């Protein structure tokens, strides 16, 4: 739920960190250089230098996501994200955006389950100004009624364009957590009820800012072409004097172990075809079972070769695509609480959901009943690695900064980015089977069916080609 235009963290402009040097033998591994330290006020700082292009990516991550926003203010973490663009003491409304764009950069922000981030990709010589600007809004956010009202309008329009006026709006990324989870923190409407968004006050914003937007609750990541010594001096100069805050204890986020399958139906009057999603609660992040689920996701769902695609798309012809994955508002690693693995598809009304579920079950049963082959596991790992490398290089290094900042915030260890591949390599076919047996059991599943409302006038009666 970003500030500017993107709903999901999709990159508009890819970016690779590299050299134009003559060809060298292709390396098959990549290690991320990570320097990590903390300021005396608690700000976590992770640096990763890469001089390929004269560009630097600055990312500030706050350890506050929509999961733990105030209970009477759904959507508030995201509304507040917007307010962070509404001006600070030295940069009145719009001026930080101008400072960035008028110097050749792009910026955005987004709100996720467990963090809110703000980032800029700029030509290298603009770095100091970015650190100054980010520090200014961490320290001196300037809020007023007019700007709050303006952003309530903007955010209301964001919810309308992405959910209320959109067929399949919120399906399944916003809907499924609300159906599958039991704990309010994981199960509320995190885009926000329009009434809650409208009801937010300046006092709410100031309280939220004082509580969560402090250096001891944040991580700063720099990726790209910068001088590390100089960067460290600037970080100290601009962020060093910002006082730490007293952080409240983190609420209990745990979900009870699910004991019975749940099924829900939602009518979408704007949709033209029925749709279906299934969700399973994930093992805890960072455990061996979690790494096994990361590979199970590759085996079952990611890519044309995946088992569910082969079964439901190629063999049955139920749908043109099975989508989904772990953490639909991020990736397999950038969250810090209960999470779902979700698969979803759109189908024709001539096919009943139970036919699709039965067919999907034959695939899911197969990974529970016998270990996958080593060849399947190898393919899963290679697919993961290719996606991971793509992610590291997107948008001026945002993917790299994202993982470093997330691992700094959640685990105090951004260098763990270089352990992900080895942890995946350690997964065996036996662990895959054991993980599937516990986490892909039907009683751990939530099913969400979308019933299509009225078909659009000129697209009625489309039959599909079974």
């Amino acid at each position, binding site marked *: 739920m970003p500030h500017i235009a993107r709903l999901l963290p999709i990159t508009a402009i890819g970016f690779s960190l590299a050299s134009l040097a003559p060809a060298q033998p292709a390396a098959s591994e990549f290690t991320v250089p990570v320097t990590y330290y903390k300021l005396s006020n608690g700000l976590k700082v992770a640096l990763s230098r890469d001089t390929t292009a004269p560009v630097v990516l600055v990312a500030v991550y706050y350890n506050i996501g929509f999961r733990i926003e105030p209970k009477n203010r759904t959507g508030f973490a995201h509304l507040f994200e917007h307010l962070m663009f509404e001006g600070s003491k030295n940069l009145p409304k719009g001026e930080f955006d101008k400072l960035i764009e008028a110097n050749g950069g792009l910026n955005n922000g987004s709100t996720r389950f467990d963090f809110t981030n703000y980032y800029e990709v700029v030509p290298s010589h603009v770095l*100091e100004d970015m650190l100054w600007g980010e520090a200014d809004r961490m320290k001196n956010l300037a809020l007023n009624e007019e700007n709050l009202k303006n952003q309530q309008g903007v955010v209301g329009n964001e919810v*309308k364009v992405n959910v209320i006026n959109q067929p399949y709006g919120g399906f399944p990324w916003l809907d499924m957590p609300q159906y599958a989870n039991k704990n309010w923190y994981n199960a509320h409407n995190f885009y926000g009820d329009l009434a809650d968004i409208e009801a937010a006050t300046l006092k709410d914003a100031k309280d939220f800012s004082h509580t969560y937007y402090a250096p001891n609750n944040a991580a700063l990541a720099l990726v790209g072409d910068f001088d590390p010594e100089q960067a460290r001096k600037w970080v100290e100069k601009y962020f060093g004097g910002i006082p730490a805050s007293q952080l409240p204890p983190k609420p209990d986020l745990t979900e009870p172990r699910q004991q019975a399958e749940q099924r829900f139906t939602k009518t979408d009057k704007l949709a033209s075809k029925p749709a279906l999603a299934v969700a399973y609660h994930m093992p805890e992040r960072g455990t061996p079972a979690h790494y096994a689920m990361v590979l199970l996701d590759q085996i079952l769902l990611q890519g044309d070769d995946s088992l569910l695609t082969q079964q439901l798309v190629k063999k049955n012809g139920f749908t043109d695509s099975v989508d989904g994955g772990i953490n639909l508002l991020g990736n397999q690693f950038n969250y810090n609480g209960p999470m779902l693995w979700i698969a979803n598809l759109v189908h024709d009304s001539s096919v009943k959901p139970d036919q699709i579920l039965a067919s999907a079950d034959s695939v899911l049963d197969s990974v529970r009943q016998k270990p996958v082959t080593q060849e399947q596991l190898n393919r899963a790992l290679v697919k993961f690695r290719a996606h991971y490398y793509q992610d590291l290089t997107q948008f001026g290094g945002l993917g790299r900064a994202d993982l470093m900042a997330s691992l700094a915030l959640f685990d105090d260890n951004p260098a763990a980015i270089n352990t992900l591949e080895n942890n995946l390599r350690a997964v065996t076919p036996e662990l895959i089977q054991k993980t599937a047996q516990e986490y892909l059991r039907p009683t751990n599943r939530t099913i969400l069916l979308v019933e299509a409302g009225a078909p659009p006038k000129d697209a009625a009666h489309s039959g599909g080609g079974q």
Partner: protein
Amino acid sequence: MKTRFVAAFLTFFPLIAQDREAPPPLGTPKPFAVPSGDTFTLKNGMKVTLAQYGAVPLVTVRADIAFGHANESSDQVWLSDLMAQLIAEGTTTRTAQQVANEAARMGGQLSVDIGADSSSATIEVLSEFTPDAVKLLADVLEHPLLPASELERVRGNLLRQLAVQLATPQAQANRVFAATLYPDHPYGRLFPTEDQLKRYAIDDVRKFSAANVGAQRTHLYVVGRFDPAVEQTIQAAFENWNSGPPAKRDPPNAVAKAAMVVVDRPGAVQSTLRLGLPVAIAPADADYIPMQLTNALLGGSFTSRITNNIREQKGYTYSPFSQVVTRYHSSRWLESADVTTKFTGDSIREIYFEIGRLRKDPPSAAELKGIQNFMGGIFVLQNSSNQGIIGQLSFVDLHGLPEDYLKTYIQKVNAVSRADIQRITESYLTPGKMTLVVVGDKAKIEDSLKPFQPK
């Protein structure tokens, strides 16, 4: 009277009040060299460009083929999409599942994308698999089965996608906008009818493929980290491919004229707007880069005038943006926005207001400098990823631009003057010749749209 926000645009940087710190002085910009590659042509006419790029062990292999929706006749709409989906359904020596598994073994997936003027088949894999990826792509392009056995399933997919897309107000708006701008050209036909899709036979697909896919229409790009010896693999894999037909182009001769079309969407909480017109500028023309700057300043960046007005000042909308859509030897400009229903008329009025203001007065020197820097920065980013680099090289190739186009791009951006921006707006963005499409709740917006009805 409505307050206008002229003052907000006068300067790019805030006036420094006594208690306000100025931003630190900027450092010295570092030099940037546009990545370049080696290009050669096979005997059958296929062009190949190899460019080393990137620190991560990835390579992108992409074949651009000079055909697209523009090559579909009025009874062939989406026939190219049907063909694209069937291309992935197996070759004379590999089943569809083998193609999928082989691609996955390398970390990738083979995807075929149909564009308006140019289409592409792409696979991105770990570096060590570059030769195998080239071979797989070659097999799929040269020896596709286009199997009749999969036609009905794939047709069902397209029918479903058609219904899903047309349920969105954005697709409805795009469809009507394109049809109004280009009533007699493929650019005006974004969606087929269901009946049309149901009529296509496997022979239609195969004939379309023979008429459009072949070596001399193809430019293969290999960009990323790879062993340069892949050149021999490329020669061996592609040299026996049929030359096929030469590229066939028939750009539209679109005439800008005023029109307003309202598509009723009862109960819609927002109105989906498209406002724009064809502009007679091709990328090779001197006005092309000035037009791009004008667009970025007017509505094509976050700090642009229209976005600032209808989003940051008024709160009417979330993600308004304008763009120059570049096609072979033609372009169009449009502003797109989803606005709160009750502010439909107000939003359109403000968009016209911003266009009118730029037609009347040139931007300030600071505003121009800012947008030049912005365009330069975006250009660096566009040239800093495998796919981005391919996109740049492919743009130059499609539009027949001079070899130094990319090398001189930033220089040309910086040569645009304040007067150029005003002249471009005045010459090309004529309010009286624009097409306005509104998808929304007709009963609620009808009255507010009356002032925009062409006389």
